[in-house]
């Protein structure tokens, strides 16, 4: 074997070596142990899952690694569950406390984002060099309080701008060893992605409206809200346009994801090394739809296959344009982070979407 892999010439592909059969075995044992331990094992399962994906992702002859301590994750989950329970109990017993809680959440959000990113990055490594995340509460608050509040004030029009600031914040504050990541996308590029997705949605509504103008979804919604009764199964005439709309809606959503992924990766860099992401909306849509069908038809047993397939497609379309070799990143100082932030974000369904 060559002692120096081709680091200097041309682009370096990311390669994913995971395979569905192998991962299925790991996944099902994880699920079983999680069930048998009433969920406690899920922290270990999470680490094992992540390790499988990290270890099997290769760049320039080296695999990535995930180092999180399952006990830290378990502790984080317990804290998250405790906070959530306190919130549910208090807000149903003392409804007046709910605004106070929401306010507290709003101010905790920047902290949660920082902790989550710090936990994930510091537990990830490549070539024995850890990633890192360093950001101050004030900077985070500007993005996750100020710009978040801007969204309802502008009736959602500011959302692409928030998305831009969010990605910018996450990437610029990330480090690999002592090298900081750069991000040079512009807000306008996010706006044009959202404009196109919105156009798709308008088309979806128009298409469904032409096929069946009198779609009485409101009646159904109101009736199902009442007394917990389920309305009659909708007739095929109702289902077709609904499916069409769902399909278009999914397409808009997947376009949004795909285009944002490409945009973000193609404008991120570290030490002059740049990423090249070439995901296609059409392929992503196909993968998502067939994954969905397979998962439903197999009662979830094909989830591992679906995950592997998606990861392989993503990695097949990710490359690194190196500037010189990958050898000159210097390790930074290591600090430990509690997992509470990440698990809080998880339980309140805050998607950090990286």
């Amino acid at each position, binding site marked *: 074997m060559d*002692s120096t892999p081709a680091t200097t010439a041309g682009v370096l592909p990311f390669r994913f070596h995971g395979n569905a059969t192998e991962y299925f075995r790991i996944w099902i044992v994880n699920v079983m142990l999680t069930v048998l331990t009433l969920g406690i094992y899920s922290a270990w399962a999470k680490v094992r899952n992540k390790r499988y994906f990290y270890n*099997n992702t290769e760049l320039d002859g*080296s695999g990535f690694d995930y180092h999180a301590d399952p006990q830290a994750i378990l502790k984080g989950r317990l804290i998250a569950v405790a906070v959530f329970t306190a919130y549910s109990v208090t807000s149903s017993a003392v409804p007046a406390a709910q605004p106070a809680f929401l306010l507290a959440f709003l101010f905790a959000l920047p902290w949660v984002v920082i902790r989550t990113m710090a936990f994930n990055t510091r537990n990830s490594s490549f070539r024995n060099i850890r990633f890192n995340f360093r950001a101050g509460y004030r900077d985070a608050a500007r993005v996750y309080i100020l710009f978040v509040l801007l969204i309802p004030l502008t009736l959602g029009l500011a959302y692409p701008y928030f998305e831009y600031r969010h990605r910018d914040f996450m990437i610029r504050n990330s480090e690999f060893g002592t090298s900081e990541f750069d991000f040079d996308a512009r807000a306008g590029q996010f706006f044009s992605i959202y404009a196109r997705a919105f156009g798709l949605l308008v088309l979806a509504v128009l298409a469904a409206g032409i096929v069946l103008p009198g779609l009485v979804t409101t009646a159904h919604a*109101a009736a199902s809200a*009442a007394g917990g009764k389920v309305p009659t199964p909708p007739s095929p005439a109702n289902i077709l346009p609904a499916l069409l709309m769902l399909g278009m809606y999914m397409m808009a959503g997947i376009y949004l994801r795909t285009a944002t992924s490409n945009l973000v990766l193609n404008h991120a860099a570290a030490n002059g090394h740049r990423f090249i992401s070439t995901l296609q909306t059409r392929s992503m849509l196909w993968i998502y739809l067939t994954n969905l069908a397979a998962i439903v038809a197999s009662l979830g047993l094909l989830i591992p296959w679906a*995950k592997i397939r998606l990861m392989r497609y993503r990695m097949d379309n990710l490359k690194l344009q190196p500037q010189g070799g990958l050898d000159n*990143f210097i*390790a930074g100082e290591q600090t430990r982070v509690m997992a509470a932030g990440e698990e809080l974000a998880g339980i309140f369904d805050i998607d950090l979407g990286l």
Partner: protein
Amino acid sequence: MQPRAVPARSAEFEARYYDGRNSAQLAVRLIIDSNGQLTVQAPDFRTEYLLRETRISGRLGNSPRMIDFPDGSRCEVADNDRLDAILELQSANRGGWLHHMESRTAHVLLAVALTLGAGAAAVRYGIPWLAEQAAYALPPAVDQRLGQGTLQIMDRTLLEPSHLDQATRSRLRARFAGMTARLGKADRYRLEFRDGGRLGANAFALPSGTVVMTDQLVQASEQDEELVAVLAHELGHLERRHAVRMALQNSAVALLVALVTGDVVSTSTLIAALPTVLVNSSYSRRFENEADDFAHDFLVTSGIPTRHFAAILERISGDREDSTFGHYLSSHPGTRERIARFR
């Protein structure tokens, strides 16, 4: 111990070495000898460790193994099988039981069966049972909050003011008051009348404690006992806390699905919704049966013949096709069975 030739106890591996200070990758030979000594060797580099002071990552499928050395450097080795063999001989293989399970097909099949079985049992028995316990532990105020505003929304979208005359209303209200008094909940439950519009002959219980009966249902009845029977069924929904239980069960199913599917990325919301909808209809069928049980007992103990329930069910199930939305019975499966039971 007899000194013997022990070639199998030592082995050489190709590996990548990372010193932990910078990201340089060094192709090395990793030599594990029979004394538990581990040597990392490259043309102009050599360092030695004891096998027992290293930390070797547990096997995970066929992904490369990471060997961490006490000085913070590490090696990445791809040849899993040979590494496992030598670690086995040197009794240095830790945490291998997971991989052991994962690589035995019988164990994997057992895991599939156990998981599917546990999932089915949780959905069929576990969640409903937990939801029931939780619902009875919650104060009635929770139900009321759930049902808040529902009637106003329905008044705006589906229902019209009732055209029944005062006499009929007071007569039925008096019957209803008698029923709720028997339950000791006279102040908790109210009876309202509405023109059902598209809902047709229908009655439903709102979590707030309001039972709504449509004019069409009253007109379809031949005697008040039939309406009492329907009201008993609706009171069953309220007394058994079906609204809260349904809400709890649905969120529990969604949570369970989310737990298992983990991060199957954005499809997760759709995937989580689908089984929830399917399970939901099975749950609502069970609630209908429970409300029927309640009505049956109530009628029997009140000395009202249960055939009245069968009679009105039969009558309104006859003309259910002609409505776009569906009737009282649409969410009540197995109408014929139910009718037979009350005959």
